[in-house]
């Protein structure tokens, strides 16, 4: 909807700061009690577009503390599943989170049930500042009177999220001029302040540098300890480093599920996805062929 002009150079100084996982605790440190029943349970999910079956009877269970990666070749239905969970694609079956049925609700109600998502292309509000972006994300529950007043000071959860995603120094810049990686972090920050308990991230590290990927991965792991996180990702190296479990999709169906090692050892996965050459290789070797795998997947 909103293609970014490639030519805009980030004006943000290099020392803008990296991620700060310590500050994360202030945002997500909540009594564990709240999250006890937080798990995503998908049963027999089907999405059909004009006769084309995009998702065909998918069952998926993701518990709190899991960092689940959805992978699969193009057209496997990864993004469509995320769309279906968030009410963007018409679906049948059942999607429950925290024992609340999500299918059939309008998108904004699904979000209020604790589900947050990002999009493949970083979509932040370019004309608003970083601070305003986060403030809006934090405010879905505000009453009309609060909305009609000016923001006084910075809400504590916004402050902490700024620290977490390392954007404190650029908080008053318009989000549109942030570097690509910073926009992705801003999106994660927005998910944190909106208090999403189920985070659905669509290619969160696309276009990031190696160092940024590392930081993002560590941050996601920390978030995953507290909350339910589902990541759609093409980057195999990132997956191997940070996934705690993997679901492989193929032509709208679940092909395989398990830890990274289990999935990699699954001959069906090797056949449709990784290519026969990857079979049986250890993790060290896998990193080496990651670029080739990535291009094969794109």
């Amino acid at each position: 909807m909103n293609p970014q002009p490639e030519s805009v150079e980030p004006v943000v100084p290099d020392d803008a700061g990296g991620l700060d996982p310590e500050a994360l605790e202030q945002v997500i440190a909540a009594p564990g009690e709240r999250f006890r029943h937080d798990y995503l349970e998908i049963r027999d999910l089907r999405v059909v577009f004009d006769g084309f079956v995009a998702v065909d009877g998918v069952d998926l269970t993701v518990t709190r503390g899991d960092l689940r990666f959805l992978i699969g070749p193009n057209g496997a239905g990864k993004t469509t599943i995320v769309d279906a969970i968030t009410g963007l694609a018409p679906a049948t079956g059942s999607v429950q989170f925290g024992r609340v049925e999500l299918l059939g609700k309008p998108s904004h109600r699904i979000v209020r049930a604790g589900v947050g998502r990002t999009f493949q292309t970083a979509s932040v509000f370019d004309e608003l500042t970083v601070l305003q972006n986060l403030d809006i994300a934090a405010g879905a529950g505000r009453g009309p009177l609060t909305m009609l007043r000016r923001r006084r000071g910075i809400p504590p959860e916004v402050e902490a999220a700024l620290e977490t995603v390392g954007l404190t120094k650029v908080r008053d810049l318009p989000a549109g001029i942030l570097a690509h990686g910073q926009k992705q972090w801003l999106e994660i920050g927005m998910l944190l302040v909106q208090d999403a308990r189920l985070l659905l991230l669509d290619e969160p590290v696309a276009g990031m540098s190696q160092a940024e990927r590392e930081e993002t991965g560590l941050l996601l792991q920390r978030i995953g300890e507290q909350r339910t996180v589902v990541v759609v990702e093409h980057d195999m190296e990132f997956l191997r480093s940070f996934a705690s479990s993997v679901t492989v999709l193929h032509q709208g169906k679940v092909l395989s599920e398990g830890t990274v090692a289990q999935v990699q050892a699954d001959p069906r996965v090797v056949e449709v996805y990784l290519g026969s050459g990857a079979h049986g290789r250890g993790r060290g070797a896998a990193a080496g062929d990651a670029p080739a795998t990535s291009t094969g997947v794109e």
Partner: protein
Amino acid sequence: MDALFSQLFAGLSLGSVLLLAALGLALTFGQMGVINMAHGEFMMAGAYTAFVLQTFIPDAGVSLLVALPVGFVVGGLLGLLLEVTLISRMYRRPLDTLLVTFGVALVLQQLARDVFGAPNVDVRAPAWLSGAVPFLGMNLPKTRLFILGLAIACVVALSLVLKLTSLGRRIRATVQNRDLAETSGVSTRATDRLTFFVGSGVAGVAGVALTLLGSIGPTLGTNYIVDAFLVVVVGGIGQLKGAVIAAFSLGILQATFEYSTTASLAKVLLFVVIVAFLQVRPQGLVSVRTRSLA
């Protein structure tokens, strides 16, 4: 029973006028997403083309038959000029295009006023279109039947062009995925221009047809443009089928409302019905589903 049939015919007749006015929009707005407020003025240009031709060709019948293709070319060239000079710069700003083309419409209207005068003028109808055809106890005016036939002919011709010719393939390719079409060797610029030429040309033809229904004036276009856009909104974008169904449905509905209330109330009722309809099908009758998240 008679009343029912005559209502139906009145509706079909109204629908065929709407369809003629909306058909070009179904191309330019439906396929290209350009909101051209000057479309009505292209119709006016077509109507005045018929008026001017009549001063050169004494026989009203010949003049009408000549005016149809000439009106197409006049409307098309105006559209082409507009596309090349203004619209091509603004494909990413559809709402602004609306305002710019409204400016063009104002200028064209005033131009017509200065050239042809503000009062309405008449175009003589050919003798073979005067009178009516008796049918099931009703008298159907021949001009109305001619316009109905012309509308159907235009739809058939356009859909053949879209289905069979390479222009049609290129238009469909560009509509469905502009970037992919570009990289597949389709010149989207040339396609845009041709589409706009054809769409605006149909407006010219519609204008010629309107001369059969009454006198014409500089504000001819303004009277039809809003209804024509509503037809496309209700019909849904991407396919001509939607526009055809929508034009005739709206025509029949309006004729029915006019019959049971008054012409002015009918407009309001029609508007309410359209808003209610959009509650059920916000994308219109026929819509091409895409996977875009926006």
